[in-house]
């Protein structure tokens, strides 16, 4: 077996060749592949909001799993109390919170699990699940006034 591929690093060579004609063979990918999450400096990620970061094409942030969804959460700002329950428990980093405010859902990364709806404490809930194909504005217009309490 020969390992002939050159190092795949920040030059994005890996992605181009995966998508283009010249796909790398399994034995051509160098062992110990290094994928850089960012273009340029990686040091300050903890201090930068997503919109301030220079994501590289290797970062899954630039990908989407929207096609996984068959149902989707819809967010109603009018009822939300910004408690951030949905933010802390979303498994897919898909609740957009900035400066202690819930802003909405990142539909590129949300898989439609429904956890956020379950942990939302308002009545009626500020998040509800709907069919993926439904229209958000129409669902917001018909938002329930008060949900029956469980139990």
């Amino acid at each position, binding site marked *: 077996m020969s390992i002939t591929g050159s190092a795949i690093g920040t030059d994005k060579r890996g992605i181009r060749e995966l998508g283009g004609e010249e796909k790398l063979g399994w034995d051509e990918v160098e062992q110990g592949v290094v994928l850089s999450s960012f273009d340029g400096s990686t040091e300050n990620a903890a201090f930068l909001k997503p919109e301030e970061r220079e994501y590289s094409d290797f970062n899954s942030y630039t990908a989407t799993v929207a096609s996984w969804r068959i149902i989707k959460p819809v967010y109603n700002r009018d009822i939300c109390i910004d408690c951030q329950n949905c933010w802390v428990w979303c*498994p897919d980093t*898909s609740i957009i919170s900035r400066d202690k405010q819930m802003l909405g859902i990142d539909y590129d990364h949300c898989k439609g699990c429904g956890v956020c709806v379950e942990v939302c404490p308002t009545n009626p809930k500020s998040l509800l699940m709907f069919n993926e194909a439904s229209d958000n504005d129409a669902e917001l217009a018909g938002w329930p006034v008060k949900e029956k309490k469980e139990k």
Partner: protein
Amino acid sequence: MAITSIKNLKEFSTNNDRFEGAHLLCPGCAHSMIVRELMNCTDDNLVISSNTGCLEVSTAVYPYTSWDTSWIHIGFENSATAVTGAEAMYKARKRKGTLKDPDAPVKFVAFGGDGSTYDIGFQWLSGAMERGHDFTYICLDNENYANTGGQRSSATPIGAHTSTAQAGTHSYGKKQKKKDIVSIMAAHGSPYVAQLAPNKWKSMAKGFQKALETEGPCFINTVSACTTEWKFDPKDTIHVTDLATDSLMFPIYEIIDGHELNILYRPKNIIKVEDYLGAQGRYKHLFKPENKHVIERIQSDIDKNWTMLQRREEAKI
């Protein structure tokens, strides 16, 4: 160490996530809730290892990575080995003055599933604990080898159905008790061990911060509800975890320096373990009359364990 504020959820939410979406974990998987929380409770640079398992295969699917920190994938046994190797090298280079930024705060964290932690990586974990590296090991305990189709591990509780300990006409599922990994790690003389759960986000964040701040090898077992193998609706991950902590199937506690046990969560209403078992398909068969004795056994084990934990806390041992 730059720990972030966990005073309340609003403050906590001002952290910038370093675990990115479009990983391929199942919808509702608790692994990512736990990983996000770990990464949000510090601003320090993180060097993280993950061995083979759901977390690793789902967060580094070529050509993508979901990690905004240094992260290494290593073989099934060796999460602790890899990250403690990095830690040893970091210390050596610091001593030799060859680090680019010797003052940058760095923390070393290893993630492992229960299959790797309790079973296959057990001796390597034990070795790393004994060598005394400055790192934190976090076990994502979903009580089975989820990534390969739900085989039983030594973390699987008695009575659970798994693909290699099946429930049927002649069997009620796994016959053996779950291994007490927390006590085993405490017996290594670790300065900080704990069992934490993502539904209790604050005690989990506090425990993570304590482990990161404590010098030496720390160990945390986290309850990671697995929608696929435990068989519940993905929306119910937090609900099922609530049932786990409120039935005391998963008590939340820490042990400092091998002694001094503190209970970190006391349910106001302790619920019957039946309510927890009944919420998951993997325990469905236990509700047949002939398996009633297994539920009784599980409840009695829980009661004894809770008594033991309370006595230890009271006696500070």
